[in-house]
């Protein structure tokens, strides 16, 4: 916990090797840290700083720009209910109210069992399907109170495990770019020829 695990350090080094400059890997590594712990810990940010050659303050400055990096523990399922215009007109406020009662937490809070965090979100670009919400950034459309209840029941019972992984999971299958298919860590200004696997099909 906290700092990146040995396996993740190995992955981190592979990710860093894809960039001409190590600090370009900061955001992918933050995702890796969030996948490991469910949120980005201070220790992980300091560790990322060591890996990419930046200070902890620089990593924190970059990370805190993005809403989707969490610095406090959140539930296994992060539920974002849209509260922008279309959803608001179609009953988002009432849905939020119901959700607060159903989960027993206020907006922004996490249930005692660590399963759910409830948040209000800005427009999720599904205005035709209002009111909508996202669970770990997976959509649910035209959500009624009953839909919400059954969603919570399904999540608790693990019936949606295949569709919705725990918060922070970027991908359950990580792709490894074979060395011969990578463009290599060459600064763009120094690239003189197309990667070999392109067989000259693309001109520079």
């Amino acid at each position, binding site marked *: 916990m906290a700092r990146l695990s040995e396996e993740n350090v190995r992955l981190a080094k592979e990710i860093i090797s894809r960039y001409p400059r190590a600090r370009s890997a900061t955001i992918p590594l933050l995702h890796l840290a969030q996948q490991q712990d469910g949120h980005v810990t201070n220790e992980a940010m300091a560790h990322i700083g060591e890996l990419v050659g930046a200070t902890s303050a620089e990593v924190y400055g970059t990370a805190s*720009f993005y809403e989707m990096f969490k610095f406090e523990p959140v539930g296994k399922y992060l539920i974002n209910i849209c509260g922008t215009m279309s959803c608001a007109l179609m009953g988002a406020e009432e849905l939020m109210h119901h959700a607060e009662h159903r989960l027993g937490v206020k907006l922004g809070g996490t249930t005692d069992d660590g399963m759910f965090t409830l948040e209000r979100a800005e427009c999720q670009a599904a205005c035709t399907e209002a009111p909508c919400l996202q669970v770990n950034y997976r959509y649910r459309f035209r959500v009624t109170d009953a839909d919400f209840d059954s969603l919570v029941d399904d999540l608790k019972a693990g019936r949606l495990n295949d569709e919705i992984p725990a918060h922070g999971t970027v991908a359950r299958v990580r792709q490894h770019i074979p060395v011969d298919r990578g463009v290599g860590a060459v600064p763009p200004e120094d690239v003189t020829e197309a990667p070999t696997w392109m067989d000259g099909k693309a001109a520079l």
Partner: protein
Amino acid sequence: MTTTEPTPEVVVDPNAINLTINGRPVAARKGELIIAAADRSGDYIPRFCYHPRMSSVGMCRQCLVEVEGPRGPMMVVSCMTPVAEGQVVRTETDQVKRAQEGIIELLLANHPLDCPVCDKGGECPLQDQAFSHGPGESRFIEEKRHYEKPIAISDLVLLDRERCILCDRCTRFADEVAGDALIHFTSRGNNTQVQTFPDEPFSSYFSGNTVQICPVGALTAQPYRFKARPWDLEKTESTCTTCSVGCRITLESSRDELLRYQGVDSDPVNHGWLCDKGRFNFESVKSDARLSNPLVRDGASLVETSWSSALSTAASIITSALRSGGATRVAILGGARGTNEDAHAWAKLADALAIDSVDAQLGDGLPAAVLAYSQATIDDASRASTIILLSPDLKEELPILYLRLRDASEKKRSRILEFAPKGSGLTRYAWKSVPYMPGNQATVVASTLSESAVSAQMAKGSVVVVVGRSNLAESDEYTMAALDAVMAAHPSATVLPVLRRGNVRGALSAGLGRRDAVDILTDAANGEIDCLVLVGSDPVADFPDTDLARRALAAVPNIIAVDTFATASSTKATVLLPAAAFGEKDGTTTNLEGRVTRLARKVTVNGTSRPDWMVALELADILGHDLGATSVAEVHADLVSSNPVFGPATRAALSAHPDGVVLAPLATVTPTPVAPPVAEKPGFGHRLVVGRKLYDNGRNVSESPSLAPLAPGSALHMHPLDLERLGAADGASVKVSGDRTSIVMNVVADDSVQRGTVWAAWAQSGANIGELIDATKWVNDVKVETL
């Protein structure tokens, strides 16, 4: 009539650019920014984020001006737009004014109008420009932003976030100039704020500069906060003498009390920056522990007396010492912390009495011969294609020189080739950092310089050798031998000596380096000195070999100390004379490159303290020697006329050149090659390396309440693998033994320390590493054992 005179060839400067600002032609250089060109032409453009010593970011948008374009006038950000040939710039049109007023109105939407209680009020760029370039009133009626006030981002700097206008000056300074990116913008949009990493303070040696460049009152310094209003401050320009870089500063006081130092932008020296030690140690000048009246020994105690009686006691001590055994029975140590005039007066007194045992350094510097090599200035070093470091950790000892050399490396002007017994602040910027075992540096230097890649690099352009004392626990001859090795490989190299004390170069040039302090103290310990005069020096605390210093002072029957504070050495004094401190006396000082600049008096002396030069003149007078001067101006005139080294530093020259006059190399000494024996690796134990940290037990830190807690304390640094082999945990207590004695210290794992060596900081509270240093040895080895 025909003329044979050829028509003069018209030379077109390819970098010259001609533009028009507000209808007047302005000559500029290619790549220059509109705002910089306008500054020169006298057309003031308001700005918050632009700073001429940092890169432009265009954060605040306050410097919008109108530039004539193909589709009519357009608004550009003048701190981001370079000048162009034929460009037509207008800075005062209605459109520009509307834009500038709009920006001010938006900045003030959230900025509190708490100017009456804000430290910056009265010297605030936002306040000033709100008046000069603002709309006069705001249309915003909404509640302003509130934050917890203030948050401490370091031990010295506080941040009031609601005042911040996000100009990026402090964060840019931390990253670009200081290289300590410990503060950064966090969050986004309306929540953006400057923050440190949680629980990791902005503990940069340069943090005070962010307070000076903050264009609002968001950043304030703990020592100055709520102490004065800017319009009550009286200012005078002077030179910092905390170390030998000699940064230009203003001394600012109110009601005869020093309250603040600010950096002045001196192009050849400090570029406006100061280190925190130099900036905040004004607190020590007004310390209650200062001596205020002369003290003369009466039995076991020192009693206050008048100057006349103290001086006649001092004179009779000197007279009886001279009578009993001649001039060899009297010695003078110190003088490197005063002014050139102080040093000159003491040197003249030593001349008059034919005293030869005089040293301004305390066995912790280098022989004066280092000043006789072909000399380089700081500018030369920062423009050299190769900078060779044979120096202590510049970040710890001469912080602003560290900034200049770091900048040279970061801007790709110079490559740094470092030779060091331990990793330093510049190691991460070095092109090549070569570690050596103390005692072997000349060999390592010679073999490294013979590598083809290194000699190819050195052949590219000028080479400057930065040379100083990197280890107090070895003979200074090793450094000189390493310097000779560089000069042998590259005879055209120039030397930048980095002796540390404020005016050590002035003191040595004035003639206060006649005999090595090690020899003087050895004589004293053998009972061959009857009278020791300490001019602002404290051998017990400052001489590397503590045991020798103690024995020497115990064996001298009479000590005369001239100092601002009572010290470990002056407790044994027969006469203790209070000296005027920095800021309390006029004069000139000489920095490490030989640059003479003026020092100014800002406040009245503490008690009846007198400047060192005056003490020397009065003593001389009682002893029957007229030194021919009665004021600091006359001492200076005498220095310039009688000492050819100081010849160019006349009053008129110093008035004409506020940045100072650079002296020629010291011609009175000749470098003689030295060949100290190569010290092989310690077969048993560890080689001792002793260096310095910026904050130590020195009086200007320990008597400054804001700085004193920053000294790290005594610890033994050891490579993690050596530590593992020893079987001690990080932080454990260990026994460290030399030949004479052993001390107990906490051990710290530090991978900048070489294997086979241990490193300790000089003059820290806790165990004194000086107990283990034997100044008569070439190198010192110690044995480390677990308890």
